[in-house]
């Protein structure tokens, strides 16, 4: 089974150091998955290309453009996510946040996520743990322990690639262990598994009205 990893990158320039970091993480993650004997597809989402459509989505109370709908579905269907943002004023960029605000609240439930950020100085490195990790914790994603932070100077050091490899290895392991809920002799409790949804479709398995009315018909 080919796993599918989506890389969301919020760099604003071309070329961008955020994209550069995203490329390296994507490559390392692919290598880590294939090293475990599995295949992987990596898809990039450049948020700059959908910036105005995200603004439209926000200013219309959530009317989706066809491309926003596709992205919401793509992310919800991913086996793993790599999220990379530049640091703006001690946090992720507004564009980065706007994308995750446009997802269904259950769009990343249980999804393994690798967080990464770029900045001009190492003094911003706590952005990973003070801004990004809480965001994905709120979305009930599973953030791998190692985050990757790259200040400009890190692009000339050995430490960066070591951290990328470690984080990629953690993400690969998380992606490949998904769905492996069964313990020897016990059937997995499928009902208890987290439910993920893109929120782009009208639910066809509607709750029967008898269930909605239970306790509200005035007689029981």
């Amino acid at each position, binding site marked *: 089974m080919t796993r599918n990893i989506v890389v969301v990158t919020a760099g604003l320039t071309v070329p961008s150091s955020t994209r550069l970091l995203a490329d390296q993480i994507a490559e390392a993650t692919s290598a880590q998955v294939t090293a475990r004997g599995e295949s992987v597809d990596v898809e990039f989402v450049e948020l700059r290309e959908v910036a105005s459509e995200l603004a439209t989505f926000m200013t*219309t*109370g959530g009317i989706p453009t066809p491309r926003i709908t596709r992205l919401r579905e793509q992310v919800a269907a991913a086996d793993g996510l790599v999220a990379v943002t530049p640091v703006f004023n001690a946090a992720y960029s507004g564009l980065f946040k706007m994308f995750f605000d446009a997802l269904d609240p259950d769009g990343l439930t249980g999804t393994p996520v690798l967080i990464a950020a770029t900045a001009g100085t190492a003094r911003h490195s706590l952005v990973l743990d003070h801004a990004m990790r809480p965001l994905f914790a709120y979305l009930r994603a599973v953030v791998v322990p190692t985050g990757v932070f790259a200040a400009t100077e890190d692009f000339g050091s050995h430490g960066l690639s070591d951290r990328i490899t470690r984080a990629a290895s953690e993400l690969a392991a998380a992606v490949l262990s998904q769905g492996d809920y069964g313990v020897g002799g016990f059937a997995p409790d499928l009902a208890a598994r987290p439910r993920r949804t893109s929120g782009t479709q*009208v639910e066809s398995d509607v*709750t*029967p*009205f*008898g269930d*909605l009315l239970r306790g*509200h018909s*005035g007689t029981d």
Partner: protein
Amino acid sequence: MQFGIFSVGDVTEDPTTGRTVSEAERIELMTKIALKSEEVGLDVFATGEHHNPPFVVSSPTTHLAYIAAKTEKLLLSTSTTLITTNDPVKIAEDYAFLQHLSGGRVDLMMGRGNTGPVYPWFGKDIRDGIKLAVENYHLLRKLWREPQVNWQGQFRTPLQGYTSTPAPLDGTPPFVWHGSIRSSEIAEQAAYYGDGFFHNHIFWNKEHTEAMVKLYRRRFEHYGHGAADQAIVGLGGQVFMASSEAEAKRVFRPYFDNAPVYGHGPSLEDFSEMTPLTVGTPEQVIERTLGFADYVGDYQRQLFLVDHAGLPESLVLEQVEMLGTEVVPVLRKEFERRRPAHVPSDPPTHASLVAAGPDAPHHLVEPARARAEELAKA
């Protein structure tokens, strides 16, 4: 098929003049829209209900009763009645009273409302929105159908031996629609009771509207009220017309660009593509509107929004006039031409419900109950 106007009753500055009408002027304009609607041959006027600025529409039955007194044929409706925060006992009384005053020219559309703080102002919790809509509407049906109601629910004080007065005109409760943009539970509710389903349509893409209506139709059939294509569907629409497309866009653009809800966001052109908004000639409006039936199926009611975003009286009344004289006559003919014989043209009216007699399913609190129990056993 019924055509008409629905208004949300916002008081918004006219961006081309900087002038904001008074509440008195806004209420007067809504009245004029209703009277004009009847004059030019439209069938329905529906008022919104809100309990916060910038809206004036806090007392729909007061307004609709006034309009009823000044009209002969116009059907009075709501878009929407807040089934969540209103006491269903008061809804039962107010709209039954309006039935008597208007000679049965009333139906209403249930909605949950869209302003968070309104819930706590009325002692409710927005997180209970669906449950409130389910419980309150069920009680409303009982109040209109049972001479004495005993009730113990979750949200209001219990009732023992309560009789709602006046009883519905001719013992026949008004027809009810349920409006919802996104909640499948509300489409399910409309289907369960065999009520109408209305999709606002103007703030969403057509694929979504199509999916919501399809769900309602499928469940309507499931509960045994008829075939899916016989379910009672209404749609909203938003138009602005002039003699040429360029002129329509020139006049409407400043109102669009500064409109509440979507102003300062997408362009007029993008929004016209994303949603059913049509700014152009009456012919373009006719063509676009006829296309709605291609994705929701043949339907029974089309309401247009024409009076928001600070549009001045002269422009608004002109739009109503063009709808009545140039657009709707063609729509009536064309919609009937494509409608199969077994699909009803009109939603149920007071006259048709009275004619169906006291034993018709409409008089049951839960017309689909036996069928639902059968299905549950199978």
